[in-house]
C-alpha cells in the first residue's frame, strides 16, 4: 500500500493497542467469573482448570498473555509520549513494545507446555 496514510508504525501501534485493549476488556468478565467459582467450591474451579490443560487452551492462554503484555508495553510507550517532555524515538519504542510482548508471552508459553 505505497503512500497509504495508515502505512506507518505509529498507526499499527494504535491499532494493536485498541484491539488488545478490546480483547482484554471482553476477557476480563470471564476471568473474574472463573476465579469467583472458588467462592462456591474449589472443586468447581479445579473442574475448570482441568479443562485448561488442553493444548488448544494453552495456545489461547499464550494469546491472552500476549494481549496483556502488548497493551502493557504499548501503554508505557503512550505514557512516555504524552507525559515525558523530550521527543522520544516513537517508532523504535513501538517496535520494542511488540518485541517485549512476544518475549513475555513466549516465556509464559514455554513454561506452560
Amino acid at each position, binding site marked *: 500500500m505505497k503512500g497509504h496514510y495508515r502505512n506507518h508504525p505509529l498507526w499499527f501501534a494504535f491499532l494493536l493497542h485498541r484491539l488488545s485493549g478490546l480483547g482484554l476488556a471482553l476477557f476480563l468478565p470471564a476471568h*473474574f467469573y472463573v476465579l469467583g467459582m472458588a467462592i462456591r467450591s474449589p*472443586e468447581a474451579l479445579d473442574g475448570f482448570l482441568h479443562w485448561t490443560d488442553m493444548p488448544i487452551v494453552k495456545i489461547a492462554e499464550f494469546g491472552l498473555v500476549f494481549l496483556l503484555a502488548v497493551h502493557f508495553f504499548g*501503554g508505557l510507550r503512550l*505514557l512516555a509520549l*504524552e507525559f515525558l517532555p523530550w521527543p522520544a524515538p516513537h517508532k523504535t519504542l513501538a517496535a520494542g513494545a511488540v518485541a517485549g510482548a512476544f518475549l513475555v508471552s513466549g516465556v509464559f508459553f514455554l*513454561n*506452560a507446555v
Partner: protein
Amino acid sequence: MLDLRLYLAQRLSAMVMVPFVFVHLGVMIYAIQGGLSASEILGRTQGSLFWFLFYGMFVVASSLHAAIGLRVIVHEVTGLRGLLLAALTWGGFVVFFFLGARAVTAVTMI
C-alpha cells in the same frame, strides 16, 4: 469521547496498574509451571492481606480503565453519545467491578 476528567482517570488508572501488571505477568509465568490447580492458587492467596489489597486495587483500576476504554471504542464505532454513552460507561464499570470484587473475595477470603 473523552474530556479532561475521563482522560485523567484513564491515564491515572493506567499508571496505578503498571506495577500490578508487571507482578501479574511474573506470577503467571511462575504459577503456570506444572499446570494450575485451585489448591495451589488458593494456598497462595487465601487469608493474605497483601494479595487482597493487591488484587483489590488492581480490580478497581482495571474496571475503571476498561469501562472508559470501551466508552471510547463504542463512541467512535457507533456514534453513541450523551446519557446512553454515560450509562454504558458506568454500567460497564459496575459489571467489571462487581465480578472483580467477587473474584477477589473468593480467592483471598474465607
